């Protein structure tokens, strides 16, 4: 085993991967499914399994190093998946910006690409379809959470604004997910139905 600040040997990484239990493996898959929700056809046909495979490859090859003193192994894996998903999103942006018209504005953001992807990706319609699901709810909590997330607020900011506990937030997210899942097969990554 390593010292406190060092990483671990490949054999230990393999042992850790091989000792992941059924619930951890399902959790990883669900996480990857949701990270890739609605992205099919946009990232060169990549899906949630590609995301998981890429994460495992990077961990095993050592291109992503695990520091056991900083994070447990499963937490480390979630971090790797998260960073690859974000990398792919950035690449998506770069691919779309090849061409002379797409010049960064004063804030360093791309202007034209966003419009192109948003149109092709039909972002606005997808989001409105999800919001529509909760429009008639007597309890406005889920709609408020969706609005908060869409505005870029973090979980703790939303909790603070709405004065709700983690448990209430997570219960609402569960309902949100289940309703979306029933309507749009979110877990199956079939966002085309939206």
């Amino acid at each position: 085993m390593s010292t406190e600040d060092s990483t671990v040997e490949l054999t230990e990484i393999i042992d850790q991967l091989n000792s992941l239990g059924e619930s951890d493996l399902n959790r990883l898959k669900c996480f990857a499914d949701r990270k890739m929700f609605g992205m099919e056809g946009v990232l060169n046909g990549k899906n949630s399994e590609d995301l998981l495979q890429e994460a495992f490859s990077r961990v095993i090859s050592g291109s992503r190093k695990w520091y056991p003193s900083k994070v447990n192994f499963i937490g480390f894996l979630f971090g790797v998946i998260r960073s690859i998903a974000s990398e792919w999103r950035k690449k998506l942006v770069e691919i779309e910006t090849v061409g002379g018209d797409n010049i960064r504005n004063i804030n360093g953001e791309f202007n034209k690409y966003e419009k192109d992807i948003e149109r092709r990706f039909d972002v606005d319609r997808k989001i409105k379809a999800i919001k529509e699901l909760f429009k008639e709810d007597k309890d406005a909590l889920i709609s408020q959470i969706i609005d908060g997330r869409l505005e870029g607020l973090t979980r703790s900011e939303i909790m603070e604004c709405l004065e709700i506990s983690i448990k209430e937030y997570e219960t609402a997210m569960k309902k949100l997910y289940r309703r979306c899942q029933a309507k749009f097969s979110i877990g199956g990554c079939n966002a085309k139905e939206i």
Partner: protein
Amino acid sequence: MQKKYKLKNWFGFIDALADSILESSDEDIYNEVKELGENPKENAEKVRNLISQAIMLEKKRKLIEARKMYEAKEKNSTIKQLPIPFNLKDKIELIIKALTNVPQSNKASVMMQFRELKKIDDIDDNDADIIIHKLIQLGLLKDEDIKNE
């Protein structure tokens, strides 16, 4: 006017959905998988297969890397051991000299190593390199002998 949603709004939304998985209990995860009509055991198996594939690919990559390193090392050592380009005649002279200098007590065993040696006139440049290499391995030729040539 109604707000128009952008890509970053979408990413924020799916990130929130994904992050809520981290807070879910095992039971919730299992329930969700089942509600999707999937089997948690089969899902786990799928992910295990992805892990196995990744491990196999990494081992393959390391093998290829090791082979490349070995080949490069071999190439380098041959180049180092035979640093001076000299002609076939010089090489043959070097071989004869090395074989002549083998002590009588060792001669039989050394010659066994070269039992497939062609007639000296039939040795070509490539044969000569191989023999010199072998003589070096046997300690019958030293770097200085080659350099002196």
